[in-house]
């Protein structure tokens, strides 16, 4: 059809407007495809590794070695595969810890990515740890004076997220990594050896009663199911949590881009009313005209989704690599080009765009050709209900004109409002995420946990602690029906932990009841004054405690009570303890099960702040780009639509700045209003998202909005608006008097 030529010529003429909506569409599709593909690859690799290398269903840390005969009896009794594994934490250089495991054959089987399985005198280490510590295959590393050859790079199914302690939030492969070696080599290394029992069942569930039976035979220092194991669970939380991001963010951008396309289409149909009327009079059928105008949507849709798919597929490669570095997963499946993602990425935006554009077109095509051939003002000269409001006719000419413009462009005003809101929310998400990391470190590790080291023992301790150390008892409990938590029995007068809520210290409240962490409060829905029932993970004793307060502890499910009360509940002697907090560096001994160096944790956070800063900068750029496109498109259209009035103002002697004030700056209060309304919306929506994710992740990011965010966000949005005004003012400057007046005559 010859009319098709007009599509390309119009798009070429209005290239900025069409490029703007295409960029929005590309962004939406690209984000969806790249994130989906990366997550799909991650999921595929995780599933393959978990199944093929028999990821544990549970593991326990035993206080003593386990008899093979005893293990075989349990295997028979509970239909479970059990395997013993030894481990040692060894120092590598001054700052790195390598956790070496013995090689297993039935559960948590190691995958050698490069090189070979280590023999005596050899080790295989995690590749990402090797890279960070500049270790290459074949290198000899010095461990406690023993030179060991690196025979290969290894991945373990129970260390997919490679963190030192279960409670760690961030991994830091420069400081901590895992490796494997044989038992003989491990024995030759100094230091205490830990005994682990790994369990695997067909359905992944823990057989009823096995934990109790094992704990009757050997001291169980820790029992962790795969569902509670952060090293396993974190990748699954990431996959699940990302689903919201994958769909929500692209959907919002898609909605914005479709709204912009529809607006452009409406404008095009308005401009071509007479042409449409003429074509109808000549005998063109509605179907033919609808197909012709749908050509715009096809062009925008195919270009946007096509480029988006290409860019998304391209970006998914580096994104998958980032995930691969973050999670210690072997490349069991290469990039997962899930055809469904491509189909959804192409079809859904295209289908939505075409369907909604067809709806807008058919509204115009329902009009009689004669009506279309007449000028619009004659066809319908009705005032909107807003224009009939009494205050619309008060004030100076400038005020009345501006108010009327707002009232006549309700849709434009709404889109400006939504565009600013979307950019603000995106911007603030970045700011809040950036700030919450700092807040989390400051509150948790500086204000609340004031100790330098936490030393966890493998057996109950009763002897007097060293001067300046504060003993505490810790055990795993179940809160309510099935919420797992750590119970801390602390000395209420300890200076090493300050259970703070805002500025108030809750330690004195421990005499009244328990103090709980924020994630636990969210999951259980408990607040001060409520009661919670806790169950001892091993003895199954129950205790109902009243909540005295919720502390600003954002990581983990924790419940604090006085030590005496906890010892009584756990059946420990009154003076017993399982761990101490102290400032002095602890001496390693056989009694010590784990040492937590708080500075290491803080360093881990700081080492990742660069990545967070980049993410925030990226989000700010996307927010500004989206804001800029939406605002410029809208203000541009406003200039275009009001060109007859602009022309008249110019003829009458108004200066360009005055015309600009009348026509363009009218939206400034709307932009400001939208911004300040969006700030609490961003805060609330992020808080809500965090709350829904807390059960999966076990931590809660504080979502406070502080003054600098509001100021920087405001300046960014105002800058974006100002830039779009500048661009539209150029258009306003080019409105020709003759052309505009002619348009009015038509």
């Amino acid at each position, binding site marked *: 059809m010859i009319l098709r030529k007009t599509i390309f010529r119009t798009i070429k003429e209005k290239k900025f407007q069409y490029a703007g909506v295409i960029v929005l569409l590309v962004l939406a599709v690209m984000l969806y495809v790249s994130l989906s593909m990366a997550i799909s690859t991650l999921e595929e690799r995780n599933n393959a590794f978990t199944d093929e290398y028999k990821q544990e269903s549970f593991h326990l840390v035993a206080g003593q070695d386990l008899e093979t005969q005893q293990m075989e009896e349990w295997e028979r009794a509970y239909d479970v595969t059990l395997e013993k594994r030894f481990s040692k934490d060894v120092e590598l250089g001054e700052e790195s810890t390598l956790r070496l495991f013995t090689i297993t054959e039935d559960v948590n089987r190691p995958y050698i990515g490069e090189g070979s399985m280590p023999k005596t005198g050899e080790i295989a280490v995690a590749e990402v740890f090797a890279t960070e510590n500049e270790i290459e295959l074949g290198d000899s590393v010095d461990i406690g004076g023993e030179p060991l050859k690196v025979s290969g790079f290894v991945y373990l199914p129970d260390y997919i997220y490679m963190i030192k302690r279960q409670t760690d939030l961030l991994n830091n492969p420069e400081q901590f990594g895992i490796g494997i070696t044989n038992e003989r080599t491990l024995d030759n290394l100094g230091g205490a050896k830990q005994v682990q029992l790994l369990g695997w069942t067909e359905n992944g569930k823990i057989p009823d009663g096995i934990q109790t039976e094992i704990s009757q035979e050997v001291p169980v220092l820790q029992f962790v199911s795969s569902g509670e194991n952060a090293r396993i669970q974190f990748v699954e939380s990431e996959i699940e949590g990302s689903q919201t991001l994958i769909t929500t963010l692209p959907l919002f951008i898609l909605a914005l881009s479709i709204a912009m396309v529809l607006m452009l289409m409406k404008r095009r149909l308005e401009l071509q009313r007479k042409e449409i009327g003429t074509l109808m*009079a*000549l005998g063109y059928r509605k179907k033919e005209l609808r197909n012709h105008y749908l050509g715009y949507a096809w062009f925008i849709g195919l270009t946007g989704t096509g480029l988006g798919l290409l860019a998304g597929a391209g970006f998914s490669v580096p994104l998958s690599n980032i995930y691969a570095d973050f999670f210690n997963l072997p490349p069991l499946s290469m990039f997962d080009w899930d055809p469904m993602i491509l189909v959804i990425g192409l079809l859904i935006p295209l289908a939505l765009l075409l369907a909604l554009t067809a709806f807008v077109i058919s509204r115009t095509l329902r009009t009689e050709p004669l009506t279309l051939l007449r000028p619009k003002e004659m066809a319908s000269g009705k005032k909107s209900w807003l224009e009939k409001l009494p205050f619309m006719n008060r004030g100076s000419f400038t005020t009345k004109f501006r108010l009327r413009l707002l009232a006549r462009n309700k849709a434009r005003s709404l889109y400006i409002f939504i565009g600013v809101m979307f950019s603000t929310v995106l911007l603030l998400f970045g700011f809040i995420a950036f700030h919450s990391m700092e807040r989390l470190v400051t509150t948790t590790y500086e204000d609340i946990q004031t100790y330098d080291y936490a030393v966890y023992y493998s057996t109950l301790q009763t002897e007097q602690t060293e001067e300046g150390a504060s003993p505490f008892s810790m055990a795993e409990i179940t809160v309510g029906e099935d919420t797992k938590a750590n119970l801390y029995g602390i000395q209420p007068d300890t200076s090493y932990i300050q259970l703070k809520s805002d500025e108030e210290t809750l330690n004195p409240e421990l005499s009244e009841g328990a103090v709980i962490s924020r994630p636990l409060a969210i999951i259980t829905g408990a607040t001060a004054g409520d009661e919670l029932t806790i169950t001892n993970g091993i003895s199954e004793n129950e205790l109902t405690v009243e909540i005295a307060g919720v502390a600003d502890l954002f990581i983990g499910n924790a419940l604090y009570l006085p030590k005496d009360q906890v010892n009584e509940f756990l059946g420990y002697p009154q003076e017993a303890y399982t761990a101490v907090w102290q400032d002095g560096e602890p001496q390693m001994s056989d009694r010590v099960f784990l040492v937590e160096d708080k500075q290491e944790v803080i360093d881990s956070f700081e080492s990742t702040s660069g990545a967070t800063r980049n993410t925030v900068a990226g989000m700010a750029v996307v927010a500004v780009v989206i804001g800029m496109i939406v605002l410029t498109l809208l203000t541009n259209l406003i200039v275009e639509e009001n060109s007859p009035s602009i022309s008249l103002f110019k003829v009458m002697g108004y200066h360009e700045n005055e015309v600009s004030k009348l026509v363009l700056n009218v939206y400034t209060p709307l932009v400001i209003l939208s911004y300040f309304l969006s700030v609490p919306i961003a805060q609330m929506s992020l808080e809500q998202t965090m709350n829904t994710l807390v059960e999966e992740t076990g931590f809660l990011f504080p979502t406070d909005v502080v003054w600098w965010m509001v100021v920087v966000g405001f300046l960014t949005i105002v800058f974006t608006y100002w830039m779009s005004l500048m661009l539209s003012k150029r258009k306003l400057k080019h409105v020709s008097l003759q052309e505009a007046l002619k348009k009015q005559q038509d």
Partner: protein
Amino acid sequence: MAIHVKEVHKKYQSGEVQIHALRDATLEIPDHKIVAILGPSGSGKSTLLNVIGGIDRYDSGSILIAGQQLETLKDHQLTDFRRKYAGFIFQQYNLIPALTVQENVEVGKELSERPLDMEDILTKVGMWDKREKFPFQLSGGEQQRVAIARALIKNPEFLLCDEPTGALDEETGKKILALLKYVNETYGTTVLIITHNQGIGEMAHKVIKMSSGEIVESIDHEHPIDPEKVTWS
């Protein structure tokens, strides 16, 4: 193709006032002739042209063209009717600005099962040399020539011209009228021209005068004058 209009009545509402645009209009338009409909603004001449062309509906009466009662046709049938039989020429030309002269004419050509030859038509309206130009590069008279070519290339049975010279000066206007006469003589196309320019009536085979929605007079000219001799008013 003869056009039979019988007791056609059309009214519409303008605010609180009811306007009778056509009051029982009855006329016969003979085949292959030029018919001029004259009358002042608001006399109903445009409404009459629109109902004959099938772009407007009427409240009562009947119009019979090519064996089809227009009042019985559904919207899509009316579209097919226009596609097959009618060619429209507007006062403001209504060309598509993004298409060249030739492409604008192709817009009409695509609708026809038996279109005329593009080069022949554009040559006859004197626009072949300017076929690559866009409408904004043409004068008003040239744009109207293109509009005539667009209507003509479909090879329609009748041309409906709504003030075709209304936006043109005398010299150009007369050239357009000469072109319409040429079309009528060469292709046998019935030409209906509505105008408030009384002089144009002199070149028509039949003149219909309208006032307040009524046909007040119908005059047949056995020897219509040449367009260049028309008294321009």
